[in-house]
């Protein structure tokens, strides 16, 4: 079992022949991910990294049976690329691109919500199911197979958490980078729900940050679930000043409710094991699971 992506996923890369797309597609293939081709408009018919290039996503779905897409298209064209994937029958769309205008994303969100697909990101490191499929830009070797799932808004902080979990002897099932933008596809709650329903996952690491209410929503949902798996939670940005954007477009404290302090309090009240130090993620998960 696995979540979102596995060894049978038929993955295409949108923005396949570009610099970023090429580099990461190569890394994904080296990990053993089932990349069946890619899309670059105008380059259809060519072969890249020993795989076919298509002009459109529809063609990739028809000819290569693609069901999953990872997007490396530049920000000005990324919203269109996500909608193309959703309209063409792709089931899992993972958008890595950072810097998509907010007004584009609210249109994408409204469009995708009416389709039979799941969008992860944008502005995220992607999704990895250990030993099966790496559909993202994360360093694969960090994510040794095990029994803990990760949901995170951040890139390198996800690697940090995975590394701690692996060193605590637990390992990873699937890690989902949901992204740090104000409007994203899969929410914290939705990603946690996927992992709660995954029989191989015993515990979940939830990494949030300042801004928005995704963590509080997830915590309030979790509180009322019957068969809970333990969650260890961390919120980055306890020392961030109000009103300043901290790197990620969505990481900004607007009011009282979206501070790290408020989120950590709500998560704690809802039964999540909250750590205040990012160095305590791995050992806390170990304690909780033993």
């Amino acid at each position, binding site marked *: 079992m696995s979540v979102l992506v596995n060894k049978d996923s038929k993955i295409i890369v949108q923005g396949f022949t570009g610099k970023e797309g090429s580099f990461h597609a190569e*890394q994904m293939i080296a990990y053993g991910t089932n990349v069946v081709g890619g899309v670059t408009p105008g380059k259809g018919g060519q072969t890249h990294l020993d795989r076919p290039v298509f002009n459109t996503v529809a063609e990739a779905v028809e000819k290569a049976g693609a069901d999953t897409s990872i997007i490396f298209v530049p*920000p*000005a064209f990324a919203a269109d690329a996500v909608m193309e994937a959703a309209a063409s029958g792709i089931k899992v769309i993972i958008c890595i691109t950072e*810097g*998509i*205008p*907010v*007004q*584009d994303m*609210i*249109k994408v*969100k*409204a*469009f995708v919500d009416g389709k039979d697909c799941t969008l992860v990101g944008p502005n995220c490191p992607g999704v990895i199911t250990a030993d099966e499929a790496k559909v993202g*830009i*994360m*360093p694969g*070797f*960090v994510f040794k197979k095990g029994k803990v799932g990760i949901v*995170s*808004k*951040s*890139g*390198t*902080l*996800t*690697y*940090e958490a995975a*590394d*701690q979990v692996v060193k605590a002897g637990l390992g990873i099932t699937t890690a989902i980078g949901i992204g*740090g933008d*104000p*409007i994203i596809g899969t929410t914290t709650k939705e990603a946690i729900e996927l992992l709660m329903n995954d029989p191989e996952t015993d515990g979940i690491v939830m*990494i949030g*940050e*300042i*801004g*928005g*209410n995704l963590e509080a929503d997830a915590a309030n949902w979790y509180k009322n679930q019957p068969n809970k798996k333990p969650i260890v939670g*961390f919120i*980055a*940005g*306890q*020392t*961030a*000043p109000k009103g*300043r954007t*901290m*790197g*990620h*477009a*969505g*990481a900004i404290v607007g009011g009282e409710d979206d501070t*790290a302090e408020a989120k950590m309090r709500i998560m704690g009240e809802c039964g999540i094991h909250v750590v*205040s*130090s*990012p*160095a*305590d993620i791995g050992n806390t998960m170990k304690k909780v699971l033993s």
Partner: protein
Amino acid sequence: MNLHEYQGKELLKKFGVAIQEGIVADTVEEALNAYGKIKEQSGSKFAVVKAQIHAGGRGKGGGVKLAKSEEEIKEHANNILGMMLKTPQTPGGLEGEGKLVRKILIAEDAYDVFDECKEYYFSVLMDREKKCNVIVYSTEGGMDIEKVAEETPELVHKEYVDPTLGLMPFQVRKVVANLGLADNKVAGKEMAKFVSSLYKAFIGSDASLFEINPVTKRADNRVIAVDCKVSLDENALYRHKDLAELRDVTEEDPTEVEAQSFGLNFVNLDGNIGCMVNGAGLAMATMDIIKLSGGEPANFLDVGGTADAERVQNAFRIILRDEKVKAILINIFGGIVRCDRVAQGVVDAYKNMGDQIKVPIIVRLQGTNAEQAKELIDNSGLEVHSAIALQEAADIVKSVLQS
């Protein structure tokens, strides 16, 4: 990116929003010329001198003055231009050092018959929870809207806009009715035009925030924007080259502007421990661990994916400019970038900068080739503390602070 009031008003006007007319000036002479023109246009001897800085509450600090003669314009322009204006929103608030006023707006008197004018509040922004734009409006204009929302929430209305449809006419009619203008044909029509033009301007400029407070209905039933705060989505500036040019870097922290030119994502803070991290989330987490170790973060700094010698050197320079910095914590999780290459970058940068570095440096490198990286740092002969585990780095910060 924030705009000045005068820039925001020009933007609104382009989209058909009626505004309080004005002319910007950066000298007293220009202010007097502007006054002459404004007086002619409006037919009134009254005009307002408004300080142009990126902060609200300017009136509270003496940055907005009414004048009715050339002498008064001269007096106010003289006082306001060059003043350090303190408002509740400038750094440190009313007790802080304030912000230097470089420009003033000479604006027409917006109130034709003062007692017959009515003020409203409008803002447009993106609602993260509802994932769409929202128009927030109220009959209680000219006031602190957060206070209004707290004390009389029933007076603050919200109109959510469907992202695929845009603002519909029935929604505009609802706004007009909620503001009590449905029975006033002229003002109702004016308000409807105001609302639809305002939303067009918001979409047309890829704004992230419009706050128009107050919007004034005059005795002659015209509806005009008297003040405005505009923030634009920086990610969308590529399609608004004309708006990108409105950026006023003198309003920003000079160190942050410089960091940006090196491709570094940097935010200046008040603490004593500088930090340099790859990735925004890990950077925030590093700031948190500094605090838990007894220090205070002096900055947020995301060096990005390629932490080579040049970037590390630029980052060092920027952090070291802050004299409060007692130590620097470098925290890199090497994924696809190898730690030994980052370590080499740190060593090279350190050597190039020679004796400029007078504070202890703690380097924590984890991930690909972390062991080789630690060895490289330990054998460099430099005064650099190295660590692999995050907790280890935190412990070193603590001991450095105590020594």
